[in-house]
């Protein structure tokens, strides 16, 4: 009995000691350098070079004037990332991320990886070209302050509300020269035009804890609006595709759904690790990847016809 009470006392003692841990420094969501630390804890890790795996899944719809939205595919996406951090005398705390990304289009009924797709508008059967973008890197260091040392305010899109740290509510508005378009896009159109938006939700207590180097239980939503994907062979037809997904950080590849893990093992083995921290290659996008794919196919076809 005395022994048991002793055990209980010891337990209470440990519990009593716990709050002194909690008094340790907290990150300040209003501080520009700490805002970067929060981003790093969510997107990767304050431990340089520690790989971070995110996974998300959802649906892709068409939006065409004059008809209901159609569910075209289920999607599964993953990103493997690592980060470098540094303290800059002018720009404050900075990080740069390097990553690779796969997004698979699945049959909406069977959930199997789609290989061929019958385009319901053209009637043509086309090859499905999944997203496999390597690399998807931050072009430059992302820092708490600009080049003059002025703090960059990110509090409109990343803020603590009660028990949660929330990020999102905006969008990356992409509008640039289409790598699959010609040299006169300003005159005749065909510009690359897309919008990507995401949210992150994290426990404020966990993410603000300064001695913690990364956030294990960050959840996210990701969405996108763009024109038809090039492999759909929709040409100039009007219409949009809309993605809606949700997901979270995983501890390792064994936590990926079978369909995605198997596909990575078979067809995308290099996506089991992020690119090197000093990766200087230009970013790959679905459009540039498709251009290489279709150029390769064209070369192969012209080679055959010459024989």
């Amino acid at each position, binding site marked *: 009995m005395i022994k*048991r009470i002793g055990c209980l006392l010891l337990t209470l003692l440990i519990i009593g000691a716990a709050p002194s841990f909690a008094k340790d420094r907290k990150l300040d969501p209003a501080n520009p350098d700490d805002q970067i630390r929060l981003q790093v804890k969510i997107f990767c890790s304050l431990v340089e070079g520690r790989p971070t795996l995110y996974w998300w899944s959802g649906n892709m719809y068409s939006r065409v004037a004059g008809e209901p939205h159609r569910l075209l595919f289920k999607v599964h996406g993953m990103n493997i990332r690592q980060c470098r951090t540094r303290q800059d005398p002018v720009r404050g705390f900075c990080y740069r991320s390097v990553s690779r990304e796969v997004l698979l289009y699945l049959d909406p009924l069977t959930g199997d990886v789609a290989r061929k797709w019958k385009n319901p508008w053209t009637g043509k059967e086309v090859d499905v070209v999944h997203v496999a973008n390597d690399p998807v890197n931050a072009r430059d260091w992302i820092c708490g302050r600009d080049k003059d040392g002025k703090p960059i305010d990110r509090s409109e899109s990343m803020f603590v509300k009660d028990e949660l740290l929330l990020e999102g509510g905006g*969008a990356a508005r992409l*509008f640039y020269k289409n790598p699959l378009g010609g040299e006169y896009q300003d005159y005749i159109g065909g510009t690359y035009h897309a919008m990507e*938006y995401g*949210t992150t939700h994290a426990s404020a207590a966990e993410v603000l804890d300064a001695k913690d180097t990364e956030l294990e239980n960050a*959840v996210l*939503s990701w969405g996108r*609006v763009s024109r038809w994907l090039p492999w759909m062979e929709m040409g100039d037809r009007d219409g949009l595709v809309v993605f*809606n997904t949700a997901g979270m950080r995983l501890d390792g590849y064994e936590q990926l759904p079978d369909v995605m893990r198997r596909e990575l093992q078979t067809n995308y083995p290099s996506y089991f690790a992020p690119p090197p921290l000093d990766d200087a290659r230009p970013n790959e996008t679905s459009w540039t990847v498709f251009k290489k794919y279709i150029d390769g196919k064209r070369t192969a076809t012209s080679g055959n016809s010459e024989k």
Partner: protein
Amino acid sequence: MKYSAITTHPRRRFRYFLSTLSMTVVLSLASHAGSAEKAQRVAQLDPSRPEDALTLTRKMNCSLEDGRPVLHWWKGTMISRVPGERDRVLFNIQGMNIRQCGSFNDPKRGPGFRSVSREVMLFLDPVTNEVLKRWTNPWTGEEVEVIHVANDPVNMRSPMFAYGIDGKPAQFRGTFVKDKVWTSGEAPLWYDNPMAGDYQEYVGNNYQAIEMLSSFTDAAPLLDPNVKTLSSVGISWTRLSGWLPWMKMGGRVGTVVYSTVGKRLESVDDLSEPLRTEVRSNYPTYLTPPPIDDARPNETSWTYIKKIIDQRRLNEKK
């Protein structure tokens, strides 16, 4: 700032320590108090049981306590998409939904619930966050009156039961990963536009929109039958539709996209400004949800705007 010397992950080590600690507490308490032991062993809700699937669905949406108001809040931006030009941020937006649920029982279909709610969403100046009264449409050059969203009610038309009319068991469409769970889905909307004419299948103008919502929470309290109301739920809501009627864009091509992030709040006091003041001053009925037996048809932005425009036209004739 070099952490590369740390080989094992400190956080994980800390977690093991914590779980050992809580195990010690549970064991030592259990050896003293039988009732505490029993309380520790209440079975979790089972998503594969239709009755529990219904309970889980209800907890993600509202409270298991009948009549307890649950408030959700979100903020973000509204962005235009027009072919040939870069997307434009038109407004900051802040919205809220106040909801309650009531229990039902059906001899054949088992337990059920219905949610009833009201919803406000404000269009704010993208720079100053002021509540906008007027807006100069950058495409037409015309200055128009801004009509904010005030939809009362936004109700489930009929209760959801553990078993469907066809006997099909209810399913909880949640994804459980690690310590988290979320629901994510889309509602593609396509129906007769209440502001359009009687020949829409011939000349077009149908109402076409898609609403997308993801809700995130912790798995443990969701699965705990003793937790009646989840205290921490994060949401992200997005929507695509044609131009809002008050923008007076007529038949011009284009889409508006809402991108937002938000969460469940304890009370109206926790709403962000200017939404909190605006709701209290101008939308006081939205401080509480409608009654559980509310039989009114749902209000949408389009039906609401139609009423306002119809009233304006009447006033102009007088």
